[in-house]
């Protein structure tokens, strides 16, 4: 895991980027630690790519300071920073062979021919594409090009590597394979990876820490586990898409315990997660794997709602069952096929969905 105590490799201090009247990145504070795999995640237009381009020196911040190793780099041109990037289009040089592509950065740094060749060959070897050294880029498959792009960026042995949705052009199977290549590479080299993606599965499967962005702002920073279990805002819960969300208002029940009043009923809140202010708007999120389905109203201290089954979707080993409450809210429950076997599911049939208050998680609106 990331050692948080040492000084950050990169820090963004109040960094903002405006294009005319459009604000791509709002005042942003972020610290990137040496050796971590950090994912910047969000939908398109959230400012993740602009942030990456500012790190690479392709855009200048409108406000704030970016520090690399403690030194401000705002005014440093791209070619004077060692912040190589793997581009979404890969941007390999089509008029150069594979090995010439990999040698490029070394050539620009004035290294001699034999030394360049030796280092490039090492990286081609490491990326398992040594046999293609003399080929043209157009003769390579998507996965092979990906490896050339990585070798071309890593050949200077930088402390940080920037990746801009590098896997988006690959098919699903290759994507999964390249994810493990990237993760292994990062662990072995200890190079800090900053990985921009809109894909939750890519971010969560590779990154040590994930930064979720929306409309130029950071919504949440945390490990994939933290974010998954405890989304900080309604936006994050929505974005992850794996929780049922009940919007409502904080209040207290007859015994003075905090509850959330929603259109589907009053729900008990998890202990320790309940903020004090009554009357405040908030949402309760419950992971779709933590909900139970009952044919009869459940007994005991569980939150429950009545809902009608409206559909069923098979997802490999599990199934997702879709429900609708009387007031039209859609809910989902994910269960293994064994758990569902004795429920005699049928579309249109009424059920009760329940969860333990401890499995709920309260988020800000």
């Amino acid at each position: 895991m990331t050692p948080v105590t040492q000084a950050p490799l990169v820090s963004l201090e109040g960094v903002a980027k405006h294009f005319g009247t459009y604000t791509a990145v709002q005042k942003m504070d972020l610290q990137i630690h040496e050796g971590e795999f950090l994912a910047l995640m969000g939908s398109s237009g959230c400012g993740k790519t602009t942030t990456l381009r500012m790190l690479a020196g392709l855009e200048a911040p409108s406000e704030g300071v970016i520090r690399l190793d403690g030194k401000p780099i705002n005014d440093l041109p791209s070619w004077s920073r060692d912040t190589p990037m793997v581009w979404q289009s890969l941007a390999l040089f089509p008029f150069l062979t594979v090995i010439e592509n990999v040698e490029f950065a070394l050539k620009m740094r004035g290294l001699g021919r034999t030394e360049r060749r030796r280092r490039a060959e090492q990286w081609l070897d490491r990326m398992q594409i040594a046999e293609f050294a003399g080929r043209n880029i157009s003769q390579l498959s998507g996965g092979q090009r990906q490896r050339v792009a990585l070798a071309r960026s890593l050949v200077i042995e930088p402390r940080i590597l920037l990746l801009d949705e590098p896997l988006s052009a690959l098919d699903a199977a290759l994507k999964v394979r390249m994810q493990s290549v990237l993760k292994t590479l990062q662990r072995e080299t200890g190079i800090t990876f900053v990985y921009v993606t809109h894909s939750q599965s890519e971010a969560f499967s590779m990154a040590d820490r994930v930064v979720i962005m929306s409309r130029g702002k950071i919504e949440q920073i945390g490990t994939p586990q933290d974010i998954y279990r405890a989304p900080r805002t309604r936006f994050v819960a929505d974005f992850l898409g794996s929780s049922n969300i009940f919007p409502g208002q904080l209040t207290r029940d007859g015994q003075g315990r905090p509850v959330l009043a929603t259109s589907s009923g009053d729900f008990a809140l998890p202990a320790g997660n309940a903020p004090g202010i009554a009357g405040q708007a908030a949402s309760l999120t419950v992971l779709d794997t933590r909900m139970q389905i009952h044919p009869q109203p459940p007994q005991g201290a569980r939150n429950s709602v009545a809902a009608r089954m409206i559909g069923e979707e098979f997802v490999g080993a599990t199934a997702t069952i879709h429900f609708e409450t009387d007031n039209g809210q859609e809910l989902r429950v994910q269960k293994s096929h064994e758990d569902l076997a004795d429920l005699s599911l049928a579309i249109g049939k009424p059920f009760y969905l329940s969860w333990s208050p401890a499995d709920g998680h309260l988020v800000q609106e």
Partner: protein
Amino acid sequence: MNRENEANRNPLINGALLAYVLLAYLFVFAPIVASFVFSFNSDRFPSIPLGDFSTEWYRAVAADPLVWQGLRNTLLVGVGVGVISTALGFGAAYTDHRYNFLGKQVYLALALLPPTIPVVIMGLAMLAFLSRVNLSGDAGAVIIAHVVICAPFAMAVIRLRLSQMDPSLEPAAWNLGASEWAAMRHVVIPFCRPAILGALFVTMAVSFDEFAIAWFVSGLNETLPVKVLGFLQGQVSPRINAVGTFVFIVSMTLLILAQLLLGRTAAPRKE
């Protein structure tokens, strides 16, 4: 090419299109072919039936020192025009590719304007201007005048190539440690190389054939097309056919070279 289902083709339309293409080519090339044929004909005047096969007109042309002088001027001008207008065209195309600025549309319209100006007006204007600054009447004047009409062709050809370049390619070079100059030298120019050579050949061919402007500004340093007019004014001689055939072959060679280079870059790249 994909084989289309023959059932989707109307034989009548196919036939008509084929005839149209053949007639168009016949119309364009018949005079050139005739000139070519008569250049090897021993008769003094072009008439049918043909006389004997003869290379005497070529020998006559080759023996004429004025023709050699004209050819030397033409080649000198052609090479100069090719190099200068390709360099200017590249600069203009790169500016358009890389930068956005106020009045860019006007800039582009002005840059591409010269070939649309009638050559007589252009020639006259060039003569008036160049004589004012004491530059008219030598090969340099022809080069200047031809660069004005040729640079837009070079710009158009190179601009097309730049539009095929991945916009990330140049930033990728900077990102890997190349300064702007290094990125230009190691990425932009190599990427554009086929178009640059193509532009060089096209502009040379345009200059090689150009008559009207050269006639105005060349003074005593006449280029070959201007010399040909001199022949015509003196007497109608089959030597003209010989010169014409030669000029045609040189121009065609340059254009075919350009076409081969540009055709290769336009072919879909596997991405």
